[in-house]
């Protein structure tokens, strides 16, 4: 039944309703695919028994003509979402054995709507990274290969030059692209949904800050973190987001607004919409392929009747440096809880401070330590005003840039999703950390301003690797992004991975 795994989420949903196959068959096909794809390292925990049990219950509900919007649909869950009774690690050694006694609000809503959990997906440690190489479980390999590069699987291990799937939601993006789940949950603090989606030819949306509850999601930078889905198509992402979104009294920053039927926005006409093209995103030395793709995106939206206007977002270049003050500051505060006392790893010490220091030295990886230390530094006495306060003021200016163009009647903004296609595992690790940070240059502004952003696959580069375009919307107007994203998808076509080389 391997063809079941190549269905989209929407097709699988419709097939289940039409009784073309059972939820149990659909789950089994995915369980088998996950098992055969271990070389990719997309899953850090497989839960096949759990999945099959949930699928059987879905079959019962479907037989009675009941069932929620996601009834019987197998999903992967980023290992940043707490799942009750199922190990949740944030892919950090400090949480290696953590079994949450509670369920995150977002995942609980998926189960409420009938979804099936296949397992927990790999990510950069505490979601800090852009390549999934900082995970304590090791890197994820993208299901994409450079054509001509001799990359294959031997004895369950990848040989050759595997590529990164992006990060931090690298497991989510790789699993969706490799047909190891119909869709996945992900989180985005600076680009962690949109960049991996762009690298793998999948669709990823970071909704408006406050759209999805952060309760039960391992915290990185609380004023920037937002959950969202990665799916095979724009429609699939829309279906997922409707279930994930919604007000939660347990998260005071979650927005008390009705959740629209996002799927209904897919295919809605975009005629007359004003699309802004920010001139500041035309970076010096921008890859000509990325520029050409951007031009294509402009032409597609124009053909669909949208009006294209040049806009200016003058503080764009300061978003990434401001992010690398705000995010580490919040991370150093959030990660203070990992002290070896209430949960997680403990390394004994001669006194309590020694225990804290040894625990955190052993439990955190290099990137996490760097960010916690930068955060501690920029918040420390004498530096707070120069760094943190200044960065928060710059953030106000970044947000004002967007408000100005939206006030001028711009409905959405079109930009590239990433400055390049995927790169090889290990290729960027030798450089200084800033080199890796530049991956998020087009996505991070959106988090700084709390806006929704979607990455939609738009083409392949000269090496044959996927590239994406990003659409940025007004606050809480994800619907417009789904309508515009669908135009790009219809124009560019889809980019499914055809060759399952990782099955060996």
């Amino acid at each position, binding site marked *: 039944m391997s063809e079941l795994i190549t269905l989209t989420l929407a097709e699988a949903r419709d097939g289940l309703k039409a009784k073309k196959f059972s939820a149990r068959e659909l789950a089994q096909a995915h369980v088998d695919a996950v098992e055969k794809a271990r070389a990719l390292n997309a899953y850090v925990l497989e839960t096949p028994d759990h999945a099959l049990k949930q699928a059987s219950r879905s079959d019962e509900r479907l037989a009675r003509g009941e069932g929620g919007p996601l009834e019987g649909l197998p999903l992967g869950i980023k290992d940043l979402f707490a799942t009750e009774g199922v190990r949740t690690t944030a892919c950090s050694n400090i949480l290696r*054995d953590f*079994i949450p*006694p*509670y369920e995150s609000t977002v995942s609980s809503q998926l189960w409420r709507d009938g979804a099936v959990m296949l397992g927990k997906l790999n990510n950069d440690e505490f979601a800090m990274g852009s390549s999934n190489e900082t995970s304590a479980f090791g890197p994820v390999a993208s299901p994409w290969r450079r054509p001509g590069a001799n990359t294959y699987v031997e004895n369950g291990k990848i040989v050759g030059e595997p590529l990164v799937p992006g990060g931090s939601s690298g497991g989510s993006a790789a699993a969706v692209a490799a047909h190891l789940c119909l869709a996945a949950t992900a989180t985005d603090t600076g680009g962690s949904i949109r960049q991996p989606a762009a690298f793998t030819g999948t669709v990823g949306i970071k909704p408006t*800050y*406050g759209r999805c509850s952060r309760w039960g999601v391992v915290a990185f930078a609380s*004023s920037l973190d937002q959950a969202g889905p990665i799916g095979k198509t724009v429609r699939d992402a829309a279906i997922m987001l409707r279930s994930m979104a919604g007000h939660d*009294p347990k998260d*005071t*920053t979650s927005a*008390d607004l009705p959740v629209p039927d996002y799927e209904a926005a897919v295919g809605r006409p975009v005629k007359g919409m004003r699309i802004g093209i920010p001139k500041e995103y035309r970076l010096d030395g921008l890859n000509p392929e990325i520029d050409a793709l951007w031009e294509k995106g402009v032409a597609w939206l124009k053909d669909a009747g949208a009006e294209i206007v040049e806009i200016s977002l003058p503080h764009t*270049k*300061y978003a*990434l*440096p401001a992010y*690398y003050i705000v995010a580490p500051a919040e991370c*150093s505060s959030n990660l*203070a809880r990992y002290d*070896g*006392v*209430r*949960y*997680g*790893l*403990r390394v*004994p*010490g001669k*006194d*309590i*401070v020694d225990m*804290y*220091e040894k625990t*955190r*030295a052993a439990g955190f990886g290099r990137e996490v*330590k*760097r960010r*916690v*230390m*930068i955060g*501690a*530094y920029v918040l*420390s006495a004498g*530096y707070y005003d*120069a*760094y943190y*306060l*200044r960065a*928060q*003021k*710059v953030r*106000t*200016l970044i*947000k004002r840039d967007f408000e100005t163009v939206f006030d001028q009647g711009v409905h959405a903004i079109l930009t590239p999703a990433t400055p390049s296609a995927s790169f090889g595992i290990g290729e960027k690790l030798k450089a*200084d*950390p*800033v080199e890796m*940070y530049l991956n998020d240059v087009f996505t991070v502004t959106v988090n*700084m301003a*709390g806006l929704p952003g979607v990455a939609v696959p738009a083409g392949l580069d000269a090496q044959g690797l996927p590239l994406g375009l990003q659409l940025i919307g007004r*606050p809480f107007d994800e619907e417009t992004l789904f309508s515009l994203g669908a135009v790009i998808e219809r124009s560019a076509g889809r980019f499914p991975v055809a060759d399952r080389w990782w099955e060996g």
Partner: protein
Amino acid sequence: MSVDAATVKRVAHLARIAVSDEDVPKLQSELNAILAFVEQLSEVNVDGVEPMTSVLPMAMKKRQDVVTDGEIVEKIIANAPASQDNYFLVPKVIE
């Protein structure tokens, strides 16, 4: 601004992360690369700009001051590295 080796050690202690002497030079150069990168912000004119406190205007929700949860001590200590009689165990902190 850049940090020297002594500052790296001080920040590591503030962050409660044990750092060995051999590790200091590498961390120092990485932290300085990041600090050099964020230095660009000093060219932005932020006179009269309010620092951001909330990314979207949102009224803080209030709720009744009543107990809505609790009596879950087993769940709370279930992941503790060391516990006894429903308490977390830590090394002695008061002589």
